[in-house]
């Protein structure tokens, strides 16, 4: 079920890559920020995570917009190393800024439904995970519809194919990039909110999701939204199975091995466009 959330983080990542060909190495940190905002809302404003989703969404959008306007835009068109290192630097700054401001303690957010679970057909499904999964599914569906049916979505897809052609068609690629990036960040933030009932909130939590998100995106195919969804579910299942049946600390190992296997054997992933 956590796979749904992995998918959400990954979808943001794949969207950013799909439209601008930039791999955002700081995606996990935005998840972490979403968690912190959610925690702050809960602690200082008594707003529970789920209702707080909208607020977080808005905050993340603004943040994504600012980050893009001041940082990302300067590396578009530059060689790959530039944005890899830029987003890497960003992730370091964000993670440690949070550390400095909030300290290293583990926070947790309590919600009334935190420990509730559905019992169904002999399986116990925890409610927060279920909600996370459902919301993730909804968001991915909404995104897919947006990409395929709306003008904006079409514009973004055109831009991802070819900047020059998009410009000729009257589309402003920079605007598309900005919105794509911002949406990607929003998805990360929302994923963070959905995760707060299940995970502790601390500065380093983003790193865990960063790596997993990359694996999911590569597995599903860079640039493919349905791929990211499917990939997220697969990885979620793999992790659950390997931690149960094989060994807890080796669970991550399997994820990485799958990652490498995909990179070497089928870099375009399950659904993706051909790798560079």
């Amino acid at each position, binding site marked *: 079920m956590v796979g749904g959330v992995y998918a959400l983080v990954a979808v943001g990542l794949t969207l950013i890559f799909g439209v601008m060909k930039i791999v955002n190495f700081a995606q996990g940190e935005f998840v972490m920020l979403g968690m912190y905002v959610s925690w702050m809302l809960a602690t200082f404003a008594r707003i529970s995570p789920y209702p707080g989703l909208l607020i977080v969404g808005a905050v993340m959008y603004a943040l994504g917009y600012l980050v893009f306007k001041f940082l990302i835009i300067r590396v578009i068109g530059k060689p790959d190393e530039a944005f890899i290192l830029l987003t890497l*630097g960003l992730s370091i*700054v964000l993670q440690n800024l949070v*550390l400095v401001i909030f*300290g290293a303690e583990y926070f947790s957010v309590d919600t009334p439904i935190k420990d509730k679970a559905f019992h169904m057909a002999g399986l116990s499904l925890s409610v927060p995970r279920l909600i996370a999964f459902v919301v993730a599914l909804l968001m991915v569906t909404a995104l897919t519809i947006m990409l395929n049916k709306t003008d904006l979505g079409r514009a973004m897809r055109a831009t991802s194919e070819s900047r020059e052609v998009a410009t000729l068609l009257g589309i402003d690629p920079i605007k598309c990039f900005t919105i794509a990036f911002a949406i990607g960040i929003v998805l990360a933030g929302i994923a963070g909110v959905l995760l707060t009932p299940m995970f502790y909130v601390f500065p380093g939590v983003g790193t865990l999701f960063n790596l997993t998100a990359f694996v999911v995106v590569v597995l599903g195919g860079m640039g493919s939204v349905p791929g990211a969804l499917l990939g997220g579910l697969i990885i979620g299942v793999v992790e659950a199975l390997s931690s149960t049946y094989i060994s807890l600390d080796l669970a991550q190992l399997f994820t990485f091995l799958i990652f490498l296997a995909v990179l070497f054997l089928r870099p375009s992933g399950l659904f993706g466009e051909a790798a560079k």
Partner: protein
Amino acid sequence: MNPKAAKFVLPALIVVVLAIPLFVTVPYYLHIMFMIFLLATMGLGWNLIGGYGAQLSLGHSVFFAIGAYTAVLFVVYKRLTPLVGGVIGMALAVVAAVIIGLPCFRLRGPYFALATIASGEITRTLLLHFKDFTAGANGVPIPFHGNDPLFLQFSSKAEYYYLALLLLAVVFMIVRTMERAKIGRYLAAVREDQDAAESLGVKTAWVKMAAFMLSAVIVAACGVLYAFTVGYIDPDSVASVDLSIQIAVVVIVGGIGTLWGPILGAAVIVLLTELTNMYLGAVRGGASLVLYGILLIVVILVKPNGLISLFDRFWPKKQVAHGTTA
């Protein structure tokens, strides 16, 4: 500064650096210098593949860890001197480089970077997992029993300081020779235009692998020295992604693809980190890293060729190699 005076800067610097331990006895300060030398050496090694080879590896901590663990475990299990154990570690690092490099070099750009990160994490996970052998997360302390050069045990920091300086000097000379030799030139060709290079007879795969292997050896050697200086290793300190990133950042901030860049970068980053910790260290330890991240971002956006490009006017001829240029 006129060029004539500039000629004296380098020798003066060397004299100063050699003399420091004679006047400074506080171990902490010597340790800072040690870290600068070590990071500079690792940076020089990384530069071979990351700068001259233009392949952004974010997994070099693998080689550091292999060097460190091999030497330490040989001491712990077999009472074998790290002078031999370290060489074995360096050889293993080369093997690892081949295993990692062969598949990874087929990938471009961010895919390559991600694959190297994955290799690093896999190594760290394996080190944690086989705890019967490697002591896992507990780490391996190196029992100290007084001066014993054969086992790299010294009671004062000064010897370690000089060892690190020596290692830096040796690696520097090696890289400098390589730059101008056939391999260095072939690397430049591969970096500029792989297809054109191939049409001129350059076996790009071999060239990249050679650079990768050499960089592995260098970083492994540093791992050995580090282990015995600090006296304790564990997977999170020697095999982490953070270390891999730090090695790369040192070179990028200093000047990717240049000879002095890694040295400048190491000095800047270590000093910046230590100063920040000294004055703002109370602020929950993250402040220095924030600055470190900001420095990286600023360099990427403003001076992609690294801080060394600030000194361009003093150089008689143009830099041999360029890296992340717009």
